[in-house]
């Protein structure tokens, strides 16, 4: 290695022994932790269903879920992903008005989703202490709601920055990352809605 030392100055090049790029590994670990978190709740939910095989309809009496209202809320959330995607595509093309409009609409629909969920909680007729189903229902939807709240916080920051003139077609990482997170939150809601309300 003496010849190497003769020609190379400064610290040695970082030796990345991992087979996965650090940023990708970090994202995979994040996804894995989230999957385990939601997975724990889904396991509890399916356990409750499995130990009630005599149930002809789910959920058992006296629980009734507002499927239609939650369905409308689902449409609102999925639509907010469209506007999020539009916002990012706009800034990639240099369309600042599209970026701002897309972010504001996404933010508004996210807030509408959360408010509707709060109203749903208030009028649903049972609470977390009403048996295992009540606990898991509020646990799962509440956990998702917490993710929506985090997403809204990220979107709010991105929106304020957009109105202050940040982001360009070349540099829009501050919109891209909240966008990925927002789509992830939507994907999780599709799973929650389909599992809890529909199946």
């Amino acid at each position, binding site marked *: 290695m003496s*010849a190497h030392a003769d020609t190379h100055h400064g610290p040695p090049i970082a030796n990345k022994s991992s087979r996965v790029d650090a940023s990708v590994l970090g994202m995979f670990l994040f996804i894995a932790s989230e999957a385990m978190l939601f997975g724990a709740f889904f396991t509890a939910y399916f356990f409750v269903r499995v130990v009630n095989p005599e149930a002809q309809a789910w959920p058992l009496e006296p629980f009734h879920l507002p499927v239609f209202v939650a369905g409308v809320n689902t449409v609102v959330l*999925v639509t907010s992903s469209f506007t999020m995607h539009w916002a990012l595509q706009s800034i990639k093309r240099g369309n600042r008005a599209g970026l701002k409009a897309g972010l504001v609409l996404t933010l508004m629909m996210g807030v509408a989703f959360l408010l509707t969920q709060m109203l749903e909680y208030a009028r649903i007729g049972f609470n977390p202490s009403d048996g295992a189903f009540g606990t898991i229902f509020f646990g799962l939807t509440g956990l998702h709601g917490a993710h929506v709240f985090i997403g809204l916080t990220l979107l709010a920051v991105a929106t304020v920055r957009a109105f202050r003139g940040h982001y360009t077609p070349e540099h829009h990482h501050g919109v*891209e990352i909240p*966008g990925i997170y927002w789509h*992830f939150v939507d*994907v999780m809601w*599709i799973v929650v809605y389909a599992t809890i309300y529909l*199946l």
Partner: protein
Amino acid sequence: MARNPFRSEAEAYRFLLLTVGYFALIVAAAAIATWLGVAVFVALTAAAVGLWMRSRSEEPVQRTSVARVGGEGERRILVIANETVGGEELLAIIRRKAEGVQVHVLVVCPALNSQLRTWASDEDGARAAAQSRLDASLAQLERDGVHAEGAVGDGDPLQAIEDALRTFGADEIVISTHPEGRSHWLERNVVGAARDRFDVPITHVVVDLGASAS
């Protein structure tokens, strides 16, 4: 098909649309009959896994360019070999390449391990075995007048090459394997994959340990 839905917003968006379609079909089928919902779930999940695995295999290979290090006139050779590290054919190639030039040889012996032991971080045995074969090979090269350094590398030969290249910067790579039919590395196309991935001339040496012993 979304390759990695968390690499970009566009991929995440595509993944969301696929998720909506996936659950819409399952819910619609389950509304007709529960068993149909289960069947659609199984079929769609199998299709998704199949498409994902196919898209992974079709991902373009990222070519690694190797920075030149070392002095003028010095030739740096990286040798990757495991069970064949002490093979006569390999030693002969190294001796021949060392003739008449100032050569710097690094022999890397991947610590081959079972998948289960790798997952359990139980690598001590594999590393010790690789080190033992490496020591014997380095001693033989020393007796033949070729000074070489050695290191035990990652169990994946391609990763072992990449790790070594980051600090060694070879002008040439020599990969030693068992003959066709007995070599796991050839079965996994390690030599071809290395040629696709690394921007360095690669020599493949076949060592028939059975023939050498007889």
